[in-house]
Each structure stands twice: as structure tokens, then as C-alpha cells.
């Protein structure tokens, strides 16, 4: 259960987010919508540790995450993707996916000892490397990218890169996965397919929460169990997709006027 309570942040006098509270449990798909500058990405950046909130707190199963660094937040089980792709373009698909398994390889500490073990070629390190490769291949297979494992990322299409980024974020089975504008830049058909893929993955696993930050209203309404609407840094609605699509405020924001 991810719980946000009274989250707010101020950038040099500009209130980017104020008093946002919500809670979401495992097995759910939560949609977050709102126009440009409404604070969607700011909210993700606060929850994943990239920004420090001015007010409020973030908890995962009653473990305090507020003010923790992104590395620690990821260790706690919250993963994310980014609006713009952030892949290592000269590495292969498999290597990118395996980079997402860093915590698996490094273990609890800094990973220095594990690195030394691997460099010397200890049997335990070899076994872990082989298992990690399997996990990465499974993650790639789940987004239908296993056949592209040895291709250099820079030579793949945008849609494939998007799917790879999803696989990389999912490789370690996070408990909460934030997808920041996953369909941005995709054709409607591709966007639809990616969306169905993601929600299938989230619903297939009992213990994962998927949070979708999206621009395309209809896509979010189609796949989410619940939808948050942000506007001007405030949470103006938290309801089921049906109610959201009938909500007057939401209509005003998206369609304009009455």
C-alpha cells in the first residue's frame, strides 16, 4: 500500500504541488491525468525521491520514504520510467535490461564485494550472473522483445525502445511502478498496444501497483481502476473512470468552457 499524505512542493515561490493525498494498494492500476504543468511529473519525482517535498509524507506499507534518495526508494521497491527515453543507446537490449537488475546483482551493500567476486569468477557470482540473465530475458519476453536481446538499442525503433524501458523498470519486479507518459510520441495503435501490454502485466501479478501518468484521457479511462485528476498542483478528483468522465471539472479542463 503506497500512501501519500499532504504532499506539497514549492519551487522558488511557485507552488507546483499542494496538499495531494491518496493511497493505492497492490493489484491496482491508478491513472493520473491533468493538463501540462498540473504537477503530474512533479508528484512522481517527489515519490521516487528526486525532489524533496516541502510538506507531506510518502509511505510504502508504513515505511517512511519521505526525503530518501532515489537509490533507496528503488531499493524499497518503487520503480519508474521517464517521459523521455533514458536508455544506454550503445549497449545491447539485454545489457540495458540487465542494468535494471543492478540491485539483484549488487545485493544489500554497495556491491563492491559482489563486484570483486564476479571479477575473480567465484562460482556464486557466476550463478548469480546466469540467473540475472534469465530474469532479464524473462522481462524482455514479457514485453515481446526477447528476439531483440542482442541488438544495439540505438538502432531500434522508438516503440521498441519504449518497450525496453518498460522491461528495464520491471525486470526486478517492483512493488509500485510509475510510468511517466509511456505513450508519448507513439502512434495511436502503438499506444493502445503498449497500454494493454502494461495493464496485462500489472493485473497478472498480485502484488504490483501500476501508476500511469498520462496525457491521453481516453486511454487512461479505459484501463485504470481509479483515476486521479490534477490541475494547477491540486488534486481535484479521485474517483472511478466512469465518474471521472462525467465530472464537470474534468470536462471543463479537458474540453474547455461549459
Amino acid at each position: 500500500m503506497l500512501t501519500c499524505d499532504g504532499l506539497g512542493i514549492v519551487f522558488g515561490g511557485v507552488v507546483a504541488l499542494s496538499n495531494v493525498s491518496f493511497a493505492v494498494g497492490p493489484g491496482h492500476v491508478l491513472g493520473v491525468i491533468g493538463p501540462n504543468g498540473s504537477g503530474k511529473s512533479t508528484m512522481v519525482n517527489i515519490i521516487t525521491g528526486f525532489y524533496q517535498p516541502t510538506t507531506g509524507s510518502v509511505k510504502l506499507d508504513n515505511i517512511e520514504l519521505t526525503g530518501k534518495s532515489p537509490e533507496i526508494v528503488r531499493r524499497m521497491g518503487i520503480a519508474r520510467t521517464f517521459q523521455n527515453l533514458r536508455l544506454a543507446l550503445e549497449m545491447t537490449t539485454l545489457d540495458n535490461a540487465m542494468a535494471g537488475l543492478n540491485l539483484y546483482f549488487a545485493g544489500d551493500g554497495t556491491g563492491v564485494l559482489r563486484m570483486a567476486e564476479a571479477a575473480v569468477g567465484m562460482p556464486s557470482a557466476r550463478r548469480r550472473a546466469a540467473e540475472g540473465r534469465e530474469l532479464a530475458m524473462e522481462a524482455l519476453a514479457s514485453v515481446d522483445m526477447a528476439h531483440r536481446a542482442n541488438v544495439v538499442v540505438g538502432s531500434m525503433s522508438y516503440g521498441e525502445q519504449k518497450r525496453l524501458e518498460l522491461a528495464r523498470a520491471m525486470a526486478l519486479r517492483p512493488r509500485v511502478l510509475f510510468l511517466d507518459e509511456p505513450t508519448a510520441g507513439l502512434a495511436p495503435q502503438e499506444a493502445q498496444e503498449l497500454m494493454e501490454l502494461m495493464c496485462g502485466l500489472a493485473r497478472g501479478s498480485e502484488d504490483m501497483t501500476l501508476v500511469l501518468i498520462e496525457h491521453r484521457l481516453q486511454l487512461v479511462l479505459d484501463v485504470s481502476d481509479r483515476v486521479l485528476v490534477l490541475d494547477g498542483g491540486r488534486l481535484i478528483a479521485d474517483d472511478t473512470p466512469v465518474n471521472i468522465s462525467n465530472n464537470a471539472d474534468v470536462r471543463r479542463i479537458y474540453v474547455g468552457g461549459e
Partner: protein
Amino acid sequence: MSTRAAIVLDESPKDRWSRERLAAIWPLVLRWFVPVVIGLMFLVPFVNDSRLQLQVLTIAFLNGALVAGLALSLGYTGVLNFSQGTFYGLGAYTTALLVTDYGLQFWLATLIAVAVTGVAGWLFSLSTGRVKGDYFALVSIALTIAFAQLCANLPSVTRGREGFFGLPEMRLFGLSFDDSLATYYLCLLMFAFVYVLMARVVRTFYGRSMLTVRYNDVAARSMGISTFTTKAISLTIGSAVAGLAGAFMVGSIQFIRPEDFGFNPSFMISLYVIIGGVGSLPAVVIVALVLTYLQEQFRGLGDYRVGVLGIVVIFAVFWRAGVLRDASWRLRQRLAGRRLRRKDAPDADV
């Protein structure tokens, strides 16, 4: 992009076959090329054992080890570190001091030098927490200049501008550094050890973490990779390697001065990594070996060597940016187009 896609579409089955063959063979080449070169180097003294030749190659091995260490931070992790020469110097001065003033055995002095430079590299890495990107380059350049100045102006410890010379005889594994053949093999062994170690480090998951940090440190952090730790480790290992090379430099050259570790020599080491390219340990090592060898071989050319190196850098950068490939493609396209026009001119409707 579109031009490159066109090339792939036009590809004949034969070209496709050779491209796929190359893709299959290339990783093996990358993995075994340097080990094979090292193996061949063991045979060189049987072919040509002139003192000069052995000394030139010995310097190439020292540089090869330095570059292999620097490849972790500057090449893989993407820290703009221009200080490898400083840690090389720190290792050399530590060893020289321990061997002369304290009368330590060479192997013990070497171990201490490696420990000292490793710790110094770790301390240096602490600044990456606050100073990033280009600013870190400035810090590392400042460190390099400060170190050379310190060595030149602290005569009670470093012997000032004259430096260390007339060192006592140093031995390792029963071989004396006074013999140029023994020195050659000792330095070759050291270089082989460093290369194998670095190659194994970059093949572990840590190598991937380093590259991920280089490409995008925000994405790296979101995957639980600590950018700070990754940078610290790559700098620490690289510095310790520089310390090891520095110790062997004392053994093989037996004469150290502050200007050997100033900004220019340090920058040269970084240049080899830049020419060799990002994330390719074999390439940077080969570049270092070849360019060091050529520079030592053509000492007679004096400062012209620097000019030639400049041209090499320009070509390397053009090549990496794809400028040369695009230019040659356009040239071929133009030649083919001319031939096409001459032949098909009457029907051409373009």
C-alpha cells in the same frame, strides 16, 4: 538516419551474410585481441633484443596499464578525470621515497604505493558528490597542476626539481630492474595483470552500472545504482592501478622528475582514452600502446609529434561522430549517381 536505413535495404545477401558474420565474430575479437598482443609481446625479445627497443616497449606497457585504469573512470563511468598522471606520480614518488630513504624492498614499497594512491583516489572521488561534469574536469586539472608544483617545490621530501636519481638496485621475483630484459618482462607482466583485471571488472555487472551512469545518471539512480559509489569505485581502482604503474616506472626508468607528472603528460593519458573511445577497454589500450610506441620511436621528430597526434585526435573524433562514414557514403553515392546518369540519361525522369 534515413540514409543509413537505405543502405540496409539495398544490402545484397552477400553483404548481409558478412555483416552478420562480423557481428558474431566481433565480441570474440574484442575479447582476445589484447591478450594475443600481450602473448606476442612475450616473444619480442627473441626477435629483437636491442636495449632501445625494449625500453620503448616498456614505456608503452606502463602507459597501457595507466590507460586501462583510467578507462574505468573516464571511459566507462564518464567522470572527466584528467588526473591519472598525478596518481602515477604519487605512486612513483611514494615508491622512490620508500626505496631510497627508508630502504624498503621494492615489492613492499609497491604495495604501499598502491594503497596510498588507492586511498588518494578515493579521497579525490569524494568531490564528485558536489562537483559534476565539466567542473570536475577543472578540479582534476587543478589537482594535476598543484601536484607537479608541490613536487617541484618541496625539496625536503621530493628532492625538488632535480627529482630522484641514482636509486638503489630494485628486485622483484628475483629479477633485477638494472637489466633491461628483466625490466621488460616485469613491466609486461604488470601490464598483463592490470589488463586482465580491468577486463574482468568491466565484464561484471559493475561495468554495466558504470556505463549506465555515463549515459544517464538520473536513470541510473532510478534503477538503484548509486552514481556516487560507482564513480568513487572507478576512481579508486583506476588510481590504485596508476600507483602500481608508478612503482614500476620507478623500477624501469630509475629517474623521476616533477615534470613527468605535470598537466601535459597527464592529459596525454586521457587523450588515449578519448581516442580509443567510450566503453571499449581493448581499443583504448591498443591506442595507448601504438601511439606511445610511435612517439618514442620517432623522438627525432621533436615537437612535430604533438602536431601529428593532434591530427590523429581530429580524425578519431570525426570517425566517432560518423563524419568520415557519411562523407565516404556521399562520395560513393555521387560516383554511382554519375555513372547511373551517364548510362540511363535518356530515360531518366528524376
